[in-house]
């Protein structure tokens, strides 16, 4: 494989699209900036009045995924690559999403199964202690605990 000839060729190719390339980069840049600002939309009064906190999280993640896609497709040139891109990206994306999904049940597990030691050091007593391993603590201190567990 003569790398020299290849690079010359690709140089000539990209030379043709040079102007349009830079234009698309700048458009992606503007889109990324707009999207970053858009994630602050969840802080607005309008959002607070009409949507839940969880909807805000979903919205911000959707924006992040969009931004990541823009970067991958345009800046990392994946949009213009041959089919090999699927070989490398699809298994990876699948496995990473799978990994995160596999960890989700642990969230529930951490909320409902609490060891004695963890309960001792915990900031707030869980309100529903029916699954807890240890009986409810003797003092009623949690009633006036200063943390807001449901923020």
């Amino acid at each position, binding site marked *: *494989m003569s*790398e020299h000839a*290849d*690079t*010359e060729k*690709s*140089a000539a190719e*990209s*030379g043709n699209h*040079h102007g349009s390339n830079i234009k698309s*980069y700048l458009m992606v*840049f503007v889109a*990324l*900036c707009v999207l*970053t600002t858009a*994630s602050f939309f*969840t802080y607005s009064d309008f959002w607070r009045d009409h949507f839940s906190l969880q909807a805000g999280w979903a919205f*911000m*993640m959707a924006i*992040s995924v969009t*931004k*990541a896609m823009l*970067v*991958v497709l345009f*800046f*990392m040139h994946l949009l213009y690559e*041959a089919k*090999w891109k699927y*070989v*490398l990206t699809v*298994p*990876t994306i699948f*496995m*990473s*999403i799978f*990994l*995160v999904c*596999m*960890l*989700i049940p*642990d*969230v*529930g597990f*951490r*909320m409902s199964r609490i060891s004695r030691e963890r309960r001792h*050091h*915990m*900031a*707030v*007593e*869980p309100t529903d202690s029916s699954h807890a391993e240890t009986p409810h603590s003797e*003092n009623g*201190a949690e*009633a*006036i*605990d*200063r*943390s*807001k567990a449901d*923020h």
Partner: protein
Amino acid sequence: MSDDHQGPIKLEYQPGLPLPRGKTIMWLFLATEIMFFAGLLGTYIVLRFGAPAWPFPHDVHLSEPLGAFNTFILICSSVTVVLSLEAARSHKPALAKSWLLLTLILGAVFLGVKAYEYKAKFSHGIYPQYPHGLVYEKADLAYAARVRKTLEAHQLRLSKFETPTEHEQKQLQVTDTLLRFFVRPAELTAAQSGGMQGQLELNRLAAAIRPLSDEMVVERKRLDHEKQELQKQRKTMDAKASPLEVLQVDGRLNAISLLDGADHGLNEKYSWLHLPIVIPGGNMWASTYFLLTGVHAIHVLVGLIVFALFLFVRLDVHRSEHIENIGLYWHFVDIVWIFLFPLLYLF
């Protein structure tokens, strides 16, 4: 291969993927990196949403505008590195190098902002680990004891000076007043009553040292009320009251006056105090924040080192492949931050 060819079979080399070796390796490396960060983010999600309490961004000195600024910086640097690649491809080495230099500068700015943010946390005692960390999960007796011991250590240190300066004298005064009329009584009440009243005292102590959200507004009203009561009491007791009682009331009034103007807590007003603070979920927050941003910062640093090395070579069309590879890495670092920013700053 034709059939009339005798002898050993000629093997033809077929590359696995139709792209340069460096790029293949870079994409494979990025594939492992994606899974690495997916694991870290998954862990963060489990720890955060499985936690009974998690601090608000402002309680741990996170500034959203600063995070957004850093996002902007990284996006800009992604653009400059891609422009550098375009310049190298169209055989403009000088232009390519200047874009790369700009990328390097932007990356350094990112790390500078990150360092500033870390320092803001460290200076408020938010470390991921003892002994530097001052964060307690809840206001309990262990916490009150720690506050008392810290003040006692201050007292001991300050009283050792043979000729203390005016500043040190004032510090000693503040320490004495807080210890005698604020911290020890609170600890004592809490230890004796045990129940709700004790917890209330401890909560007030924690709120005075480091209020969360609007705690100080509530506390202020209560303190003003107590002050008026004490002043009334002081007026009526002048002549025949025992000096001990007078001292008690005066001391308490002094302690309350120390809290004047400490709307962001005693730790802010007297920054030399470094008293333990209560942030529910604060320790786990610190662990995840410093791990995630730290690992990301190391990636940024590695990118910057490679950019710095590239400044010493001619960035013509033959180098464009190399620029593309480091560019791929740099865009990946940008993508990681795109996910970290909302997860850490905005959620």
